[in-house]
């Protein structure tokens, strides 16, 4: 178990290293001369040269990457070339809204998936209905969902605010904060629920149709609720949790869009602004945060899976 964790940690570090190196190279190659971009087309050559020296732009990319990496390891992500605000500060401000949004989306997604799966397993007609709805929802882009929600609940019914972030420290407190988060969470959660449901449903179906331990449970004379609760559901939990973890990576894309639509000052909006203004340090800091988060959450998912599922606990430890 410990060996596995260590192995995974090494893999994690490698992936983060490769991704940041690739991102660093990509961003620096693609963004052209950042000094010219920052100073404008009419800057004097001297001014450009001065900024080059200040930002070490004349060093080879690999050297600059390791400079950056060295700073990162000391907890310094640099300062924004646009606002001159420390990147770490921007990140610590942007993380809480994004984190809350993702938690909210997961709650919505998991609840919907469990409820619809239960319906899909119980009757044939609900199965048809629910899979149809899931396919439809899956075909609606997140920003369209978000706009539809705004049209219904904000502009028509005036039930919910269309601005998605109220700091819990502000006058309204947590109550206002949560009310504001409802629509963004639903918009994002709707995007993940079809995938959750599809996998959960097929896993349970598969068990009911094929697994002999379900037949054995039936042959024991157990009631259907007992068979489902003790012999089917527990065997789906581990896989479901690891799926939630892997889906978190996909959620990031939706976060960018939902934060934009609902004006939530999170990582997604920060990244979008940084891309727009070619703000390399912010971009790289954000990417590093996201990639590290994704890799860690995948590991956590895998570990929880192993904790819960005795099959994996015993057999895959050496894998």
């Amino acid at each position, binding site marked *: 178990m410990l060996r596995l964790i260590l192995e995974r940690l090494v893999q994690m570090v490698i992936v983060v290293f490769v991704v940041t190196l690739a991102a660093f190279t990509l961003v620096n190659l693609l963004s052209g001369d950042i000094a010219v971009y920052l100073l404008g087309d009419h800057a004097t050559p001297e001014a450009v040269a001065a900024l080059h020296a200040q930002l070490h732009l004349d060093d080879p990319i690999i050297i600059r990457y390791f400079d950056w990496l060295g700073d990162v390891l000391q907890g310094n992500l640099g300062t924004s070339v646009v606002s001159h605000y420390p990147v770490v500060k921007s990140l610590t401000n942007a993380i809480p809204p994004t984190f809350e949004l993702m938690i909210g989306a997961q709650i919505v997604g998991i609840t919907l998936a469990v409820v619809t799966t239960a319906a899909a397993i119980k009757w044939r007609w609900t199965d048809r209905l629910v899979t149809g709805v899931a396919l439809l929802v899956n075909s609606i882009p997140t920003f369209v969902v978000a706009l539809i929600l705004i049209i219904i609940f904000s502009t028509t019914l005036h039930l919910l605010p269309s601005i998605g972030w109220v700091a819990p420290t502000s006058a309204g407190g947590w109550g206002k904060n949560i009310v504001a988060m409802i629509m963004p969470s639903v918009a994002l959660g709707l995007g993940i629920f079809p995938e959750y449901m599809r996998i959960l449903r097929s896993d349970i179906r598969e068990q009911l149709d094929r697994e002999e331990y379900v037949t054995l449970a039936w042959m024991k004379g157990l009631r259907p609720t007992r068979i489902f609760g003790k012999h089917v559901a527990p065997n789906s939990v581990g896989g479901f949790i690891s799926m939630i973890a892997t889906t978190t990576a996909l959620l990031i894309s939706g976060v960018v*869009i939902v934060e934009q639509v609902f004006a939530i000052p999170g990582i997604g909006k920060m*990244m979008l602004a940084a891309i727009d203004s070619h703000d390399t340090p912010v971009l790289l800091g954000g*990417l590093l945060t996201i990639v590290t988060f994704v890799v860690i959450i995948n590991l956590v998912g895998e570990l929880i899976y192993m904790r819960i599922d005795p099959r994996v606990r015993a057999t895959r430890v050496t894998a």
Partner: protein
Amino acid sequence: MTTATRPLGASVTGLSDADATWVSGSTRGRMVATLRTWRRAILSPSVAFPLAVFLIVVIACFAGPEILNLPSPIVGNLNDTLLPPGSPGYPLGTNELGNDELSRLLWGGQISIIVGLGATAFGLIVGSFLGMLAAYSGRAVEVVIMRLFDALLAFPGLILALILADFLGPNVWNTILAIGIFGIARFGRLAWAQTIGVRHRDFVVAARSDGVPSGSIVLGHMVPNVMPTLLGFALFTVGTAMTIEAGLSFLGLGVQQPQPTWGNMIAGAQQYMSLAPWLLILPAAMLVITILSLNLVADSLRIRLDEER
């Protein structure tokens, strides 16, 4: 890998007699059987109906503006702004610049469809090439390529696409590239897994021991065995690529106004949401109908093919 040196005409489709001798009966038989089951599956109503819907959308978008003799989507009449659908001369109304909405809808669809298919094709070709190369070569090549896929998957997809689209400059080709890179790792992993599955099959081992060139083995034995699965997956990816394209356009980093795409039409319509809701509803509906029809085709096809098995 020697595929690059092979003349194009001698690829999978145009088998010469010499090629036919090393395409073993099993591979060829499988291909024919696969084609037959696919044809049967496509003709079943649950696949054929959404497929017809998608084809109608495609035909309407590409041939519609010419057949209906529609006005240009970008040269608007500023006297006719924000007309509702059903207005004389503008069956679906106009936008804030007086451009014909129907024309914009069809032109915008072209971009969505081109990007959806183009990005999928890009991911499919590059991904399956790399995946099969990894599986076929083994050793260091395999390790490097597979780690590359890992890193690509760890990269938040939309942000990567956003960076590429922004820094390369927003146009159709860069959008295809930016979204296509998304698919490389997914297609690549699938191709790798499928190729690993046939790598040790008898006909491949036999061909190898007979000294058949690697490129021939890959094209003649592996591609036909791996492709059906990849093409099935590609169907799902087209809808996803269209969703991302719309997202990019919506965020202002896809194809730029005034050239219409469904994504940037929705983005532009946001401010006129209460004044002219049709500007938002029409492109959104087209987008959803198209993606839904594609997803239905992919889903039904998968179910059909599962049943055939």
